Every structure is written in structure tokens, then in C-alpha cells.
């Protein structure tokens, strides 16, 4: 943890007005990412991880309310003028969205969508931008890149489209790449390829990355640090090796248990996390996970645990009844 901090999210709250009342999508979140480091953000769908990424990018829906600070490269993104923010986006802050079927414009060619970014930020002429686009497509493993430039998204497979989206994100050598569930919409066989591509390019370009996923298995081995989110809050945060060695939050354990295991006997029922996430428009008084937690006791239902550091350095969790090291080892 000696590198300089590139991104720090400080006490960020995102509120969304809905017909049923205010929805707190992100609830007092603090996170930091060092330059060239990778952070995994893990949680079930609806836990606020996508809203958090949109908050960092300043791409929240118009009616959403955002408070807190998002310090990126020494500037508070919330205070930045729209023009300065625009110059930053795509240039030093890039994103890959979940679904490559919808994130590329269907009526513009791959080439247009790549080149426009290069021309916007790097002021390349058409020839140089085209040349660089071909290099980028080749770098993300797209065969026959020259021909692809002329093609439209619908002529490419899902995996190829996501590679194009990654090429667009990488095009201006960003300092931070946010990958928001980059493989969820893809075939299982392609998922590992895309994740490995992201990890390879991240190391090669010495770029920081936030990898958002619902799959704890995805972040193992591909990130330096992991933050587990539940109901809008970070409930456990630790360096990746430390987390997998000794997870303390029962929710993290449940997430891991919900992963299908490769060595399980055939026809073993998948253990799902029982119950549903709480209704975000009706916040609970106690720990949000307490209704589903098998360890919960009286205190958990009436008081919210704070995210605090314990055990090893950098390992934080918000729980009154953390799992014992010995008990969780087999999980």
C-alpha cells in the first residue's frame, strides 16, 4: 500500500427518488484504489455496486442525489465543471459496461466508435486514429481488425463486442478502468478469456481497475483488494489473499458458499442464500443482513454495525458476530 492513491471514494451516498419513497442505493461508502492496483467490488444484484460505479463516473440518472467526495487524481469529481469532467472521461477514466449487446451503438461502425474517442481526446488525425484503432483491436484479440472497423456491432458475437468495448475503454490509456460486470452477459466459455484479457492489459498498461461482479470467484486471483457490498454498504473489505484466507462477515461466507464447486458430486443442490435482500426503500434499524443471517442475535436486529478494522492490517468488516477463523476455514 505504498503507491499513491488514485481514487478515493469518501462517504458517498446515492439517493434515488422512487414512487415508493426514497431509495438509498449507496449508503456511506468509503473506498480507495491505488495507482495500478485492482479492486474487486462484489455483491448480489441490487446491492448498489452499479450505482456506485455510476457515481464515480458521474453518470447517475438525472433525478439521483449524490453526496460525499469522489477524489480522482487529486480532483473532486463532484466539484468539476461539466467540460473538465468530459475531458477526463474516456481519457483517464474509462468504463466497460455489462452488456456488450446494448453498450455499442447499433447504427455506427466499430471504427467510428473507436476513432471518435481517439480524435476527441488525443487529437489524432484520421489516418493515425485508424492505425491506432487497428492496433487496439489486435491487442484485445480481435482477428482481422482492419475489416472489423467497417462492421456494425450486430455483425460481431457477444464476446467480440465486449472485446471492442474493452478496446474503446483502453484506447486513451486511462489511469482507471471500471469494469462493471464485464462478463455477466457472456457465455461461460468466453468469461474467463475476457477476464484474463482485462487482467493482462491492466498489468501491461499499469492501469488501476475496479472489477465489479456478483461472483466472488471472479475476483479471487485477479484483484489486489476486495470490497463486499450489501444493501448499499461495504460490509467487508480486505486484501484479496487475506479475505479468502479468513473471511469474517457471514454474508461474504454465504456468497462464497453460493458458488458452484467444481469438485462437488454431481446433482448436489446449489446452496443459495436464503431470503431476499431488504427493500431498499424501507431501511432496517439493525444490520441489513440480519434477517438472513444464521449467526444473528438480538443486537444485530437493533443496531447497525460499523465498518471497522480488525485482525490483520487493511481487513475491515461490519459485523457484531464475525465468523471464527477456524469455523469458516472449510466454507
Amino acid at each position, binding site marked *: 500500500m505504498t503507491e499513491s492513491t488514485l481514487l478515493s471514494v469518501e462517504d458517498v451516498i446515492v439517493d434515488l427518488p422512487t414512487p415508493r419513497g426514497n431509495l438509498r442505493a449507496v449508503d456511506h461508502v468509503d473506498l480507495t484504489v491505488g495507482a495500478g492496483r485492482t479492486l474487486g467490488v462484489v455483491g448480489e444484484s441490487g446491492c448498489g455496486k452499479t450505482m456506485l460505479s455510476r457515481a464515480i463516473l458521474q453518470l447517475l440518472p438525472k433525478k439521483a442525489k449524490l453526496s460525499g467526495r469522489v477524489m480522482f487524481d487529486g480532483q473532486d469529481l463532484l466539484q468539476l465543471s461539466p467540460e473538465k469532467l468530459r475531458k477526463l472521461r474516456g481519457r483517464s477514466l*474509462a468504463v466497460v459496461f455489462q452488456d456488450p449487446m446494448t453498450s455499442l451503438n447499433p447504427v455506427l461502425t466499430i471504427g467510428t466508435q473507436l476513432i471518435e474517442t481517439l480524435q476527441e481526446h488525443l487529437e489524432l488525425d484520421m489516418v493515425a486514429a485508424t492505425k491506432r484503432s487497428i492496433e487496439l483491436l489486435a491487442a484485445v484479440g480481435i482477428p482481422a481488425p482492419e475489416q472489423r472497423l467497417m462492421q456494425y456491432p450486430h455483425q460481431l458475437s457477444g464476446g467480440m463486442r465486449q472485446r471492442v*468495448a474493452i478496446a474503446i475503454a483502453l484506447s486513451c490509456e486511462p489511469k482507471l478502468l471500471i469494469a462493471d460486470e464485464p462478463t455477466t452477459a457472456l457465455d461461460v466459455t468466453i468469461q474467463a478469456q475476457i477476464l484474463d484479457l482485462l487482467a493482462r492489459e491492466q498489468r501491461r498498461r499499469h492501469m488501476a481497475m475496479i472489477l465489479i461482479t456478483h461472483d466472488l470467484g471472479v475476483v479471487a486471483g485477479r484483484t489486489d483488494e476486495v470490497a463486499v457490498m450489501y444493501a448499499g454498504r461495504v460490509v467487508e473489505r480486505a486484501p484479496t489473499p487475506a479475505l479468502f484466507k479468513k473471511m469474517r462477515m457471514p454474508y461474504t461466507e454465504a456468497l462464497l458458499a453460493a458458488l458452484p464447486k467444481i469438485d462437488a458430486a454431481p446433482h448436489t443442490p446449489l446452496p443459495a442464500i436464503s431470503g431476499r435482500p431488504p427493500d431498499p426503500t424501507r431501511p432496517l434499524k439493525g444490520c441489513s443482513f440480519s434477517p438472513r443471517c444464521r449467526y444473528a442475535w438480538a443486537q444485530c436486529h437493533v443496531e447497525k454495525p460499523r465498518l471497522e478494522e480488525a485482525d490483520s492490517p487493511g481487513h475491515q468488516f461490519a459485523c457484531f458476530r464475525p465468523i471464527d477463523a477456524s469455523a469458516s476455514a472449510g466454507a
Partner: protein
Amino acid sequence: MLGFVARRLLYLVPVLIAVSLLTFLIASLLPGDLAYTILGDQATPEKVAALRQEMGLDQPIWVRYFGWLGNILQGDLGRSFRTGQTVLQAVTERLPISLELMVLAQVIALAIGVPLAIICAARSGGSFDRFMTGTAFGMLSVPTFLSAILLIYLFAVELRWLPATGYVPFGEDPAKNLRFMVLPALTLALAEWPGIMRVLRSDMIATLQEDYIALAKAKGLKASRILFVHALKPSSLTLVTITGINIGRLIGGAVIVETVFALPGIGRLLVGAITTRDLIILQGVVLLVGAGFVLINFIVDMLYAMLDPRIRHGHA
């Protein structure tokens, strides 16, 4: 794409036959006899019988239809029994005027409707958007002949800036031609822009919610590029559709506008033929307008296919 064109072309044939059949049937609705109508008051039974024979009216209806159709296919649509002019002559003489009027009107309507739609979509829910959608809704309740009267009153009677009626061919004096064309084209455009704006606006609002717009923003593109390229280009398909759908209305509007502003176009030819009971001209014009309408719709379909890469590459 080729298969698509072929299929649409094949579909044209039955539709065109239906158009000719319907035109013929409408003309046969005439109570009484065409020969009486042509000969008028001085009709003697002998004259009528002679004319009936000359025109083939004494034959069964299907023989008359195929005879008529055969003549049409040879380019003979008949001749006005009042002016002696052939239908084809009369129509080709007047077609450029109607086309100029409709193209001008469409251009003006797009020039008003498209920018307003974009501004409203970009600031949907704002006060400008609410004001403009309200105005557009109100304008939809103003019939063409009403806005014609309003514009004549305002610009020709009160302000005396523009002539109320009259026409000079473009080839003769372009500036004067445009002066005569401004009010008619504006009248037609006033009926067209609200529809264009409303449809394009709601379409753009939907497009602006798309992931690829979020990505375009995340790429740091300028707002103008996002609106005009990333959002407007997908919506241009909608624009083609609505333009196509509106053509029927535009043609109807042109009839009214040409009559009000005394422009010697197809519409005025049609109305004139009705008032003077020039039934051959009427039948010919109805047929040609119907066929032209079918062809324009075909062209719009083709344009649509060309604009949408998914259809162009045979994915649809």
C-alpha cells in the same frame, strides 16, 4: 438486401392492381351514365347511344376494366372531353409544382421539428419541453385550411409581405417563384412539424436511456456529438417512418393548399376536375396519385432498409 427488394417489388404488383381496380370501381359508382354527364342537357337518346358505343360503355364491366387497364399499360389514360388535353399531359405539366410544394413543406417541417425534438428530448420535463409539447399538441388540432387562412390573413392581408395567391414557374423567375411558394409551403409545414417533433422527441428520450448513450458520455464525447450522432442517427429510422406515414396526409394537404393559394398543381387539377365534372381527368388523376403514393411508400421502405444496417445485412 436484394431478397428484401425483390420481395417488396413483388408485393407492389397486387397492390397496384388493387389501386387500379378500386379507381375503376369508384368511377363506376356514378349514378346514371357517364355519357349523359358528358353530353349534358342536350343529350338525345341517339347521341347517348352513339357515345356509349364509342366509349365502350355498353360492354360488361370486366371487359371495360381490362380494356381500360390495357390502354393504361400502353400509356393512354384518356383525354379530357372539356379541354382535349390528355391526362398524362395535364399531370406531367402540373406535377413539378406539387412536388416543389411538398418537398419545400417537408424541408421546412423537418427544419422546425427536428431541432425542437432534440432540444426537448435533451431537457425532457423542463419548462421549454413542456411548453413545446403543449404547443405541438395544440397545433395538431389546427386543420391545414385553417392555418392557410391564418397565414393569408397575417402575411398577405395585414402585413402585405407576401402574395396570397398566384404562381410563376421556377424556370421563369426563381425568386418570384419562391415568393409565391413560401406561404403555401409554410401552411403545409405547420401541419407536419408537430407530428415530427412529437414522435422524434419520444423516440429520442427512449434512445437517450440506452446503454450506448451512457457509454458515449463515459467516453467523454461532446454533448452535440452525443445528441446529433449517437442519438439522432438511430432515431433517423423513426424519422423516415413518420415521413413516410405522413405522405398520405401531405398529399391531401397539398390539395387544400393548392386550392386556397391558387397554385396550378395536381391538387387543383383534381378539384377542378370534380367541379367541372371532367370525369376522365378525375379518374386518371386518382389512379396516378394512388399509384404514385404506393411507389413513394415503396421508396420509403427501401430507404428505411438502407439506413438500418441490421436490415441491410439481412439480419431482420
